[in-house]
């Protein structure tokens, strides 16, 4: 099996639209969760039903018109806009130039939970609210789940596999893990991999609200609403954005003198097969063990875990128990943080954004904190880095956990490149 290097990173997020800004804001402990005065991108005339809990979110300060000419923009749902811009950043960062042969041996794997959700919402609004049959002609092409990956492939002429993974909240961790496998087995030399999600539209917010998993907005400070591992946590906050990485065969990267951010050494994948939403200690633990086995390292070599940490009642206690199950006594020594406390839950893009977070933590030797954790849950008794970012650490290997509705658990491990 070949080694896999991470040679490029791109980020569109509620905390900034490039990797540097994103990670700096994380280490400052700043929240990107804000009040949404109106559902993002709502067309005029949107019905004004008040939903009780839906009016906060991790919104990206992103205007597609800055990046795409109008004729192209009209073909791109917000989810594809995020994906294309993040991919462009990652490819620029990698300094890769695709020649004829390189394009044959390069592909794109993207994770997304909901695809072009804004387009679907707009279409239903036209049809049901406006009573018009003039649904946008490009609706199918904008809403289809594989649009984001396809546009990246078209943009760079990448002729290898182009796949979209949709395993809810682990989608993009799966996309990155599967992409790494393709490189490891020698099928391809370069993969653009990551995830994108744009769920801050009215219909999607209402659907999540109906599931009663969204956090109650903090009345004074929206940024204090998402409280992973806290006794007073009330649920998750949706966020939008994308994260993309360039993964590359180690020798290929070395041969062209590429800067290597990290080496992806472990990918663990398993399925709960128990309940459509309820997480399982056994399933989460199995995914972490498989990733450690694949990386061929011991649990005590992991210096930081970026937790799935959704701030739902169910997840955080289960994940804590799973970490203890896998790490034993080291569980109480390894720093664990949930950066979702700051950027929210990016669903299909969450795994990629948090994988990027671990890569940047490794590279800069700084562990980002869990914010809003003032009242610990007795069931959540690990070191959650609650008092602010931690520097002066010696990180050799780091882990990113992604778990999901549907039960697909994916864990990624990196070490210093």
């Amino acid at each position, binding site marked *: 099996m070949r080694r896999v290097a991470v040679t490029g990173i791109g980020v569109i997020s509620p905390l900034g639209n490039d990797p540097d800004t994103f990670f700096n804001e994380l280490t400052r402990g700043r929240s990107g969760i804000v009040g949404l005065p109106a559902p993002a991108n709502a067309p005029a005339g949107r019905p004004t039903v008040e939903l009780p809990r839906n009016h906060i979110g991790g919104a990206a300060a992103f205007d597609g018109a800055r990046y795409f*000419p*109008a*004729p192209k923009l*009209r073909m791109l749902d917000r989810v594809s806009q995020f994906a294309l811009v993040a991919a462009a950043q990652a490819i620029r960062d990698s300094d890769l130039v695709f020649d004829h042969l390189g394009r044959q041996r390069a592909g794109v794997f993207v994770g997304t939970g909901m695809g072009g959700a804004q387009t679907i919402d707009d279409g239903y609004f036209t049809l049901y609210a406006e009573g018009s049959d*003039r649904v946008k*002609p*490009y609706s199918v*092409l904008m809403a289809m789940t594989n649009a984001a990956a396809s546009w990246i492939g078209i943009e760079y002429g990448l002729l290898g596999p182009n796949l979209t993974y949709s395993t809810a909240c682990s989608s993009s961790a799966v996309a990155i893990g599967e992409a790494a496998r393709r490189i490891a087995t020698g099928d391809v030399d370069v993969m653009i991999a990551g995830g994108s999600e744009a769920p801050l539209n009215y219909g999607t917010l209402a659907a999540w609200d109906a599931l009663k998993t969204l956090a109650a907005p903090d009345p004074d400070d929206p940024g204090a609403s998402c409280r992973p591992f806290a006794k007073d946590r009330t649920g998750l906050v949706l966020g939008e954005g994308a994260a993309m990485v360039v993964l590359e065969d180690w020798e290929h990267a070395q041969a062209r003198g590429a800067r290597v951010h990290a080496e992806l050494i472990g990918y663990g994948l398993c399925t709960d097969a128990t309940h459509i939403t309820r997480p399982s200690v056994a399933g989460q633990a199995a995914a972490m063990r498989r990733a450690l086995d694949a990386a061929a390292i011991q649990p005590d070599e992991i210096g930081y875990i970026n937790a799935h940490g959704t701030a739902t009642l169910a997840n955080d206690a289960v994940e804590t128990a799973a970490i203890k199950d896998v790490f034993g006594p080291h569980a109480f020594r390894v720093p664990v943080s949930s950066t979702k406390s700051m950027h929210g839950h990016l669903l299909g893009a969450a795994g990629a954004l948090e994988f990027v977070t671990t890569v940047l933590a490794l590279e800069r030797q700084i562990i980002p904190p869990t914010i809003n954790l003032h009242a610990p849950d007795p069931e959540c008794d690990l070191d959650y880095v609650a008092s602010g970012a931690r520097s002066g650490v010696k990180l050799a290997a780091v882990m990113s956990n992604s778990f999901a509705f549907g039960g697909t658990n994916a864990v990624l491990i990196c070490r210093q490149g």
Partner: protein
Amino acid sequence: MTTLQSMQGIFKANFDLAPEVLQRDAALEDLEIDSLSMIEVLFAVEDEFKIVVPHEPAAWRGETRTFGDLVDYVDKLIAAQHPAMAGGEVPA
């Protein structure tokens, strides 16, 4: 405003194509206007001329090799659907 001028306006707004390149003998293929683009401007054309484009994409695409063919086709629809307006003036 003539049908040609109005169509130039629609294509400028939708595809950022300058009126100078949108001449009667310009081939749609050369302008990179494909069947998808034609579907995208359909509503705009319908609204502009207060017409209904028949619901067969073939009719919208088949007879249209050049921008001029397209303008003629729209004129034909205007003539059929607004007999009083025939001659190129856009109905108010």
